[in-house]
């Protein structure tokens, strides 16, 4: 896969094969647009019908090899090209290149890491979705409470009710982080700018 080449700059041939996600994948099903690029496009190789690609004349040095495919995502690879022997390792974006784990064998066989998915799935209209909606659940719950509450209240003894009221008052601590929408709205609609709404609500009781 690597042969000597006579040139002013010492250079070598670099070739490999691009494969699909499964063993049954035919290389000819790769898009004709598929390209293998070295160093961000300094060298480009077209992928042939049988999946092979060749850079005929790569000067010695280290390169980043990427596969540009509209169908699949391929790992990025660093390649050290020398006239005699080249070495290749998988690298991840932004990682240092001194780490030489994930060594690859020649001839380079590039297998995709995932299929490229360009779209987010869209949720269609389903009745179950409609009722799973938190808004709907809350509404349902409110309606339910509207019916159940008077009955619950009727069965509760007066002492427990007193206690609960006390708990509720404790819970009505002013919350500065969260604007009290109810209070604002009440103020807005009644034009009452005096006391806070929980107090006024209590007075009405």
């Amino acid at each position, binding site marked *: 896969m690597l*042969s000597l080449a006579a040139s002013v700059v010492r250079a070598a041939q670099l070739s490999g094969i691009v494969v699909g996600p499964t063993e049954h994948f035919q290389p*000819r099903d790769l898009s004709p647009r598929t390209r293998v690029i070295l160093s961000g496009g300094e060298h480009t190789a077209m992928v042939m019908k049988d999946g092979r690609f060749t850079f005929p004349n790569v000067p010695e040095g280290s390169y980043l090899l990427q596969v540009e495919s509209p169908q699949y995502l391929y790992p990025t690879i660093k390649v050290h090209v020398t006239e005699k022997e080249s070495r290749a390792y998988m690298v991840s974006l932004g990682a240092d290149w001194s780490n030489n784990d994930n060594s690859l064998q020649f001839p380079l066989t590039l297998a995709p890491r995932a299929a*490229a998915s360009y*779209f987010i799935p869209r949720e269609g*209209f389903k009745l179950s979705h*409609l009722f799973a909606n938190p808004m709907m659940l809350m509404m349902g719950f409110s309606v339910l409470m509207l019916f159940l509450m008077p009955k619950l209240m009727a069965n509760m003894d007066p002492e427990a*009710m007193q206690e609960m009221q006390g708990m509720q008052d404790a819970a009505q601590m002013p919350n500065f982080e969260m604007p*009290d929408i*109810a209070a604002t709205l009440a103020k807005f609609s009644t034009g009452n700018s005096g006391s806070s709404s*929980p107090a006024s609500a209590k007075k009405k009781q």
Partner: protein
Amino acid sequence: MTPSSYRGRHVVSWGLILWVFVLALVITPIFALDETQAGVIDWHHRWIGTPHLSAIPRTTRGSNTFFAATEKNVVAAIKAKTGELVWRQVLRDDEPVHEIRSISGHVLALTGTKEFHARLLDGKSGQVIWDFSPAGEGIVPGLAFGQAVTVTSEDSNLVILNQGTHVRKVSAKAGTELWHWKAEEGSATTFFSVLEAKGFDDHGDITYVLGLQRNVAAFTLEAVALDSATGSLIKTFNIKSNIDSFEDILTLGGGSVVKNGYVAWLEQDFLKVLTLGTNRVTQLSVKTILSEVSSFEELVGKLETVNLGLAEGNTKFIIGGTVGEYHDAKGSVLFDIDGDSGEIEMISDFGVRTGFSSYTAATKPGTSEVVILRAFREDEEHGAFELYDVSENKIILHQILPLPFDTYSHFSFVALELYSKGQGTQHRFYFSTLDGSFHAYSDVESERWQREEALASVKDVEFVDLPERKLWTQDVDEAGHTKAAKNLTIVERYVERLRNHIIQLKDLPAFIISYANPSSLFTKSPIAAPYSEVQINSLNKTIPPLYRDQFGLRKILVFSTEKGKVVAVDSGNKGQIVWSRYFPWGHDIKNIILIRHANVRLPPVIAIIADTSDGGGNKVMRTYRLNALTGKDFESDNFHFPAAAWIPAGYLSALKLPIEDPEQKTQVLALVDERMHITTYPGIEAAQEAFKALSDDFYFMLNNNIGDKVLKGYKAIVSSDMDRMDVEPIWSIPFPAGEEIAVLAERPSYEVMASLGRVLGDRGVLYKYQNPNYATVITVNKKPKHGTAPYLTVYLVDIAKGSILYQVTHDNVGLNQPILATQYENNVVYTFWSEGETSTSAKGYQAVALELYESQFRNQRTKSDIFSSFASERPHVIAQSFPFPHSATAIGVTSTKAGISAKDILFGLSRQSVMALNKRFLDPRRPTSALTAAEKEEMLIPYSALPDDPRLFLSYDLEIAGIKKIATSPTLLESTTIVVAYGQDVFVTRHAPSKTFDILNEDFSKSQLMLTIVVLAGVLFVTAPMMRNKILKEQWY
């Protein structure tokens, strides 16, 4: 205990849920399309460029595809009948196509400069079957020839010539080398052609390599005979000759061991022909030709050879020449070579035709009889084709077709296909014209088509907002007819309107049905019909008047092209071409500016500024003013403001002035020419006076070009004694030795800053640096400073006073990869290739984000109320670089109406996609250590490499080839921006960087709403009697 306190609690929990929702919206900055939007909100035109080479598979019934190679380095297959693109292979920018051939249904293409490739592409899919690329062989720089290929008929293998020295026989099936012959090292001969032909002595199978040997003044011809089977040298023929250029030479005949090969050339006063394999040269003196050919009576200049592009084996050739007093016509004559004697025979005088003539030839289906096509201009409105049958020795077809000169100009390339249908022969002509478009003319009317390939070389785009329909109806009545100039009274108008409304009532049932139809309710978007780039019989098509949609999403995009053509397309309607204008005779369009928006009753007006040259080679700047809706000249009554004007000097710059011309309400431009004069456009008194009034504070940059070593700033000077406005340099920044400008970025033409500062986690504010006069300049130096590779320096320059606001150097960058930069508000983003400091450091693209603030401290502002470039404040710059996963070729930034929406940085990628990356990823304040509470509050994303996620691609899996620029334009919707990516393909989409918060979501289901209302109404009907009963009961008890 009452329900009211419960309600209070509910509201709190509702509020919480709302918050969760809002957070969820904000926290997922990854925008992605869903599949139903694809092709609905975007469109994509696939262009190939103007063809200059073609290959047609030989069939008798007519081929389905036409193979073309174009000046945009594309090899493409086009459906012969419809003009649709079957496939294309877009090659590198440095990989021009030298030759294409059709070989058993596939295409052979010889390409490349640095690397030479011979590739066989599958005729059906465009996939590479084999790729033959000798290592270390490019092409000789500056040599116009040196690559050639010939098919050897006996074993149907190829002989390929490269670099003018290497000859190889390559197996056509597998692309493997069979033999290699190389010219001697240091030989003075450069070879230009190869041919297999009849041998000599006892050598039967010979491949001839033809070369030119450099002599003192001219070239002499050399023919090398190689053994076709082994490639061994048999003999070298040195022919006594005196040739000026290789263009005077034609290689003829051959292609088989039984046919003689010939070389014909023009040499001073003779036309000579060499029979290959011998030293026999026959000749015909030019004098004889001139005396016998009546076409050449008025010959001006030299005779020239014409390549007919026939396959090997044919010996016919044409000699042509320019004739006529005004050099405006061509004469030509057809020659043949006698097979036995090698004598030149004159066959036919083709006569004189106006304009340039383009020739091509083909053989009749199933025979080897040659038919020659000559294409030329008949008159101003028509082009013509003449088909000459050599065997019958007469013109068999004279076809005139409408081809207005103003729109298409001359023919630049023709190809001919003949096929048999029934008893007769059918013709198909493929041609490109100087305006860049590509056409097919067929005997069958439905198979005539046109591709507007000028759009493959778009230089610039201008967005034109459409007028509102309300305004449009002032000139056109409500039924759509142009209103006659009748003055109606109010009552009459009212009656007319009422009548129209009644007429429109008939559409109401259909509207209700369409709305009530459940299928239309439950299926969301319409399925997009694929738009074809092909215009069939486009000449007589009328486009209905366009008007704005509710959200201003529909615009006219006016593209200026390198061909001198201006094409306007509709951004809705899949990019239908609305109008096009061609400016012939070498108009180099420099700028295209919308000088008036659509206004009440006034159409939008666009100014086109182009450089041309007069007869004497002097540059002339020409300005044209067009109605942007129709493309017609916009005439005004003012004598001083004609639709077309000129200035006798080359173009430097056109600056938009904040002045309006009082008569036509157009924006006034200041045109700066190479004499350093300023001319206002329009040149009326009022505009000049207004400009003089503001010229004191008018600073700008001029002709700062890529490759310059100095950056200069200018100011307008109004000389009081003379009535002239000049430009004077006021500052210059000479860069250190070796540095050259690589990239310039200025702030976008449309920009609104919505917020003055950036709110931090602790509610403090960093105030943005709001200098409208700063520009980004990136210089490169090939000589390394500290590292091992070239370095680049980024300068932020105040263009009013020429001071450097910020400067940073990146060592070890790659200059073979693109460097890109964009700026907006207080942000600069640039990308470059980093080679890394040492051999073990990572290589890859880096994207750097700069943010400019008034101060490094929170809540601190400059004291002054107004910003002045002349104050000495410098911005505080926060910078961060990020590894970038793709190779980008273009950069842009979204722009919205009020600037409230988040910004996305748009990248055109070499993998033929358009990517949108939210600014939150390119935020220099992204923390590199663990997030603090304040940073969490500010919702910063921890530092990481930029995401490599296909869901960021606005163009999903479309193939957007050759993106050179990305332009954006705001719409009436704050959330949405129109994105246009161009270069070779044109891709237009709508993009909402912060999601469409100002319109109902596409997901919003009207059907759900309707359903709920219906259900509620139903429930009401059921519960109302129940309630009534209950009340009644309560009354009783």
